[in-house]
Each structure stands twice: as structure tokens, then as C-alpha cells.
């Protein structure tokens, strides 16, 4: 998306990768499991939240976030030739990610009642493709970020819901069917939503 919006701009691409991996990836991989675990446990209150957070801290996802940030500081080692087969293996695993996420989403989809889903869908679209890009734009103005970085931030923040939300909902015994239905509608709506954000950004 960024490659097409900002052709031949290496800075925009590099920043977009870092923003999407850390600015969006880390909240997804940290907050999603905690929220899903908290609501999925059926218990509410402070103790339940603490238990959810402690469970998350022991999870492979959290360990990989910490290990990844730690290893990224040693690029000399990361780029060593004998480690290339290891990274290639991980690249292959990465290729399965979206197929697996779509598989889980497709298995969960039922579309039981559009009337029940509609308010959730409307709220998610307003927040995801309206409020979030607006907040990002305000943040960029406050921090005096350059125009190009601001446009990259707005465009990334307007992207539709992550398919992985449905995966966490299933794993932590939440209402995964509703989550999947809202995610699916949200992604389909992004055809219009992203166009509007993109148009408003450049005009």
C-alpha cells in the first residue's frame, strides 16, 4: 500500500515497516491477548486482569516480542551467513501466517444476524477509519513530524482490522464468531474507507 502511495520512496517504506511492526504489531500482540484473555476468562475485576497479564507474560508471543527486540540490537550477528537458513525458515513460516489467519476467519464466519452485527461494525469503522487516523494526525502535528511521515502514519492507521483478532478470540474462548464477522465486514468496507482517507489526505 505504502509502496504504491509513495513510489520510489525508500524512507516512506522503511518507516512504514517499522511503524507497522512496532506501532501496530506490538499492541496487537500484547493488548489483544490480554483483552481476549480478560474477557474470555468470564471473570472481571482487578484480579482477573492481573491473572490475564501474568499469563500473557509467560506466553510464547510475549517471549518472542522481547527476544526479537533484544536480537535486533545485534545486526552484525543477525546478518551472519550461517544464520541465513534460520531466517529463511522463519520467512517460510511467515508465508503461512495470512493463509492460516484467513482459514481461521473463514471457519468462524457464520453471519447469524446482521442486525446484531451492524452497530458493532459501524462503531469499528468509525473508530478504525475515522477517529484513529484523526488521532494519529493530531499526534503527528503535536510532535512536529514531517509531512511524509505524517501521511505514512495516517495511511497505516486507517488500515482495516487485523485478521489476528479472530485468532485470539478463538484461543481465549471469546465470542470469536462475532469478532470474525465484524473483521470480515471491516476489511470489505476498507475498499471505501481507505479510498476516502487517501483522498482526504492528498486533497
Amino acid at each position: 500500500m505504502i509502496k504504491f502511495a509513495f513510489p520510489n520512496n525508500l524512507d516512506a517504506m522503511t518507516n512504514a515497516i517499522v511503524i507497522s511492526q512496532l506501532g501496530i504489531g506490538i499492541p496487537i500482540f500484547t493488548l489483544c491477548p490480554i483483552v481476549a484473555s480478560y474477557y474470555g476468562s468470564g471473570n472481571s475485576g482487578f484480579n482477573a486482569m492481573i491473572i490475564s497479564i501474568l499469563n500473557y507474560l509467560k506466553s510464547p508471543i510475549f517471549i518472542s516480542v522481547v527476544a526479537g527486540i533484544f536480537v535486533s540490537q545485534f545486526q552484525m550477528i543477525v546478518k551472519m551467513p550461517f544464520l541465513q537458513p534460520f531466517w529463511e525458515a522463519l520467512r517460510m513460516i511467515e508465508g503461512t501466517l495470512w493463509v492460516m489467519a484467513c482459514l481461521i476467519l473463514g471457519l468462524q464466519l457464520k453471519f447469524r444476524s446482521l442486525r446484531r452485527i451492524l452497530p458493532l461494525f459501524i462503531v469499528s469503522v468509525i473508530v478504525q477509519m475515522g477517529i484513529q487516523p484523526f488521532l494519529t494526525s493530531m499526534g503527528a502535528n503535536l510532535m512536529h513530524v514531517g509531512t511524509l511521515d505524517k501521511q505514512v502514519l495516517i495511511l497505516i492507521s486507517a488500515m482495516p482490522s487485523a485478521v489476528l483478532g479472530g485468532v485470539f478470540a478463538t484461543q481465549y474462548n471469546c465470542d470469536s464468531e462475532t469478532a470474525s464477522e465484524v473483521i470480515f465486514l471491516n476489511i470489505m468496507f476498507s475498499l471505501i474507507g481507505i479510498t476516502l482517507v487517501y483522498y482526504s489526505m492528498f486533497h
Partner: protein
Amino acid sequence: MIYTMLHVTETIFAFAIIVLLVIILKKKTIISSDDLKSYSKLMTVAILPAVIFFQLSLNPFNGHQLILVLIMFTAGILSMIITWITGRIMRLRNSDHLPLLVIL
């Protein structure tokens, strides 16, 4: 602008085709919803940790990018809070709150 929108359209249609294929496979009972739990476990225990580690290891970030990440992170948290408050105002049940919070 037209190229960007074409690319967005292509990506979304590709996604829709895969989901449609899964629905067809489900209808033909080649895959089943009974396997959902094991697929999810495979994702959260093996595939996701591997991908997170891979992406974070190969993309070190500098101070300037840290500001961009913080802006995005803060906007995400604020959006979740706004969604949670909206859910309370709409008197949504916990089971309805979750999908909204998790998908943002």
C-alpha cells in the same frame, strides 16, 4: 491515486477469495470448525511467535522512528478507550465489547 486504489482493491479481493475458498471447503466438509481450536493454538504458540521474532529481529529502529511508533501506539490505545466507552454508552455486553476491542 488510481494505482494505490487498484492495489487496495486487489489485496481485498485476494483476501475475499481465500475466505470464500475456506467457506467452500467447509461446506464440502474437507475442513471442519472442530479443528478451529487446534489451528488457533498452532497460530498463537508457533506461527505468530516465529513471525514476531523474525520481523522484530530484522527491523531495528532508530530514535526518529520511535516517535512515529509512539504516536501510532498512543492513537491505538486512545481508540481502544474510546471504543470501550462507546460500548458502555451503548450498553453492550462483555461478549460484544470484546470483538470491538480485539479487532481495533
